[in-house]
């Protein structure tokens, strides 16, 4: 507990953009076959530092087979909520779940160079207290730390629907399930919210048997992955509207609401349209009658390819699907970054008009067929995947692994973990930084990135930018 609010808590997105820039990044390192322990890499981003752009510390966990994926902070700018007044928490701990083991680590990063495990929550405790498994997305909010899960109970996670549970933001005890009325929601992936407007939006990937051992082609072609997003009354914990994006829009993953809390819209990325292999972004918004609406505002076409160049999974299609697997919105709600993991492209859209996004820039790197080299001449395994934008919007970082078993299906001959960065100029120009290239320790792949002091997919703001 501090006597003053943590200096990394900002009332509005604009104040967060003006704050000092990030000094460190924390990036997930995962062992795809569980032969090594997973960990968190601490990357030096201090300008002028001799070790800038290098991994300067690693927190390696004692267990194997956790499979780290997404993670998040114990506290963010949502602590300045005038309603909850948790302003004196410290942004100090990273909550890191293993989506394969269901174990959760709480890592103390107060001194990033000495980051260490503070607490471990064993899977049994999670199962017992929530009936959920495979914890995934972390957001800090009004009632504590909210964690979405991908699985329900039972060994294969299909005994009951997955959902969200709440952890105490000080003791990290698991409190219990979030939902009081989940409506039609029976799958889960991402979630985010608008705190003053009191709504939450959640999305769907698939159930554990549909992803743990690789993508199930029959399920995809018969449209059995998630294709709905759910709108919730956040504090009443009630699903108020389920919106089906159409069953061909398979895997509605990342939810990115506008950061300015006066706005009632956001975006959702769809991995693949099974009718034409397109990737898509939907814009969702609340209309004047309070009903949620959505419209497909971005489509990205597949690129025809010689079946000989394609992995078995795609040979029959003769094309590379874009595979929109992650999106991230800059804090000024101006640029939406869209990872096209299959094509090997990172797109930058100007979404100043959220209903009419305009492709403003593009970086080509990796890709199933294109296999673009980095500007420094080195290889980039897989394609651009987890993307994180600095608070000031000037640096865009990304890594390359999607999910262990899926990497192996889409990129059977690739291996490696890389983290790169692109610069965004005052005019919005989007270019890969030639000198920023981190090769991860052998045998480890890279997934989500968190930036010291918050980033564009962490903080929820309670006051508008004015």
């Amino acid at each position: 507990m501090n006597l003053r609010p943590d200096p990394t808590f900002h009332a509005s997105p604009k104040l967060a953009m003006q704050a000092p820039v990030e000094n460190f990044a924390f990036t997930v390192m995962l062992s795809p076959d569980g032969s090594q322990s997973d960990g968190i890499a601490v990357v030096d981003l201090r300008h002028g530092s001799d070790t800038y752009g290098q991994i300067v510390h690693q927190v390696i966990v004692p267990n194997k087979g956790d499979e780290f994926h997404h993670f998040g902070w114990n506290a963010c700018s949502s602590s300045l909520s005038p309603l909850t007044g948790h302003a004196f928490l410290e942004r100090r701990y990273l909550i890191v779940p293993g989506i394969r083991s269901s174990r959760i680590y709480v890592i103390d990063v107060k001194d990033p160079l000495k980051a260490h495990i503070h607490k471990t929550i064993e899977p049994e405790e999670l199962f017992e207290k929530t009936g959920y498994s495979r914890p995934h997305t972390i957001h800090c909010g009004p009632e504590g730390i909210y964690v979405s899960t991908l699985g329900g109970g039972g060994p294969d996670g299909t005994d009951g629907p997955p959902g969200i549970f709440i952890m105490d933001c000080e003791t990290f005890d698991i409190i219990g399930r979030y939902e009081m009325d989940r409506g039609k929601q029976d799958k889960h992936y991402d979630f985010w919210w608008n705190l003053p407007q009191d709504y939450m939006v959640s999305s769907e990937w698939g159930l554990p048997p549909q992803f743990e051992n690789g993508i199930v082609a029959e399920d995809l072609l018969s449209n059995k992955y998630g294709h709905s997003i759910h709108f919730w009354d956040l504090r009443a914990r009630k699903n108020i509207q389920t919106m089906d994006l159409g069953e061909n829009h398979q895997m509605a993953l990342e939810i990115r609401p506008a950061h300015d809390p006066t706005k009632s819209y956001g975006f959702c990325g769809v991995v693949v349209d099974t009718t034409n292999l397109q990737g898509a972004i939907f814009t969702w918004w609340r209309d004047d009658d309070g009903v949620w609406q959505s419209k497909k505002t971005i489509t990205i076409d597949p690129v025809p390819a010689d079946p000989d160049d394609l992995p078995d999974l795609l040979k029959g299609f003769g094309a590379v699907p874009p595979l929109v697997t992650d999106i991230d919105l800059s804090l000024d709600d101006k640029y939406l970054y869209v990872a096209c993991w299959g094509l090997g492209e990172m797109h930058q859209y100007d979404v100043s008009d959220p209903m009419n996004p305009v492709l403003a820039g593009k970086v080509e790197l990796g890709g199933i067929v294109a296999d673009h080299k980095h500007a420094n001449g080195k290889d980039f395994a897989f394609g651009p995947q987890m993307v994180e934008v600095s608070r000031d919007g000037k640096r865009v970082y990304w890594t390359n692994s999607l999910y262990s078993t899926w990497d192996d299906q889409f990129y059977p001959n690739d291996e490696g973990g890389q983290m790169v960065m692109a610069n965004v100029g005052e005019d919005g120009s989007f270019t890969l930084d030639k000198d920023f290239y981190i090769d991860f320790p052998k045998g480890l792949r890279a997934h989500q990135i968190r930036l010291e002091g918050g980033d564009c997919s962490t903080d929820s703001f309670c006051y508008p930018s004015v």
Partner: protein
Amino acid sequence: MAELTSVAALWWAVIISGFYHGINPGMGWPLAVSAALMERKHTAMPKALAMLALGHFVAMIAILLPFTVMIALVTWEVEIRVGAGLLVIAMGVYLLINRRHPRFLARVHPARLALWSFLAAMAHGAGLMLVPIFLGICAIGAEETGHLAAQALMGNNIMTAFGVAAVHTFAMTAAGGVIAVIIYFWLGLKFLSRTWFNLDIVWALSLVLVGCFGIYSALYGH
């Protein structure tokens, strides 16, 4: 004359405790700022302040009224005042030991400001902080008016309770309103986090202090 200053001092305590509650962000001034910003109009601020004031006022009355009934039992006056003092101290000690924030406040809808303000005041023992002061005023009042019938005395005390709650709430709203207005119109949101201090311990100690004062004045003062 000494008694007059004493009554005046107690009323000043009511006002000062109002200012004190008002500057505590936990009693809601940041909500007034956010309401004006969210609705993008200045008029949302006085409306929000009025809702916060209403909730606070009701919370004060809810705590003070039961004591107006009890204190009408004049023979037990000292015991009741000592008991009230102990209760206030207990609340302070509880808040010192239990430093967790009341999670149920997070479940109130952001638009229900009066309800939020009521619950926040209750959870923080804001009403209790007034009890010893209020009982002091009642005791002096009873002495001045002589031995009225219990019913008349209770009527007086109820009037006093409403007076104390109103004056206190007015002072609270003025103090919180001034901060909200300064931040909204001049300083900007940056100062929202800069002016937000952790008053938790000071607040809990204030309750202990006021409780001790209540016991002391019951035994040795009025």
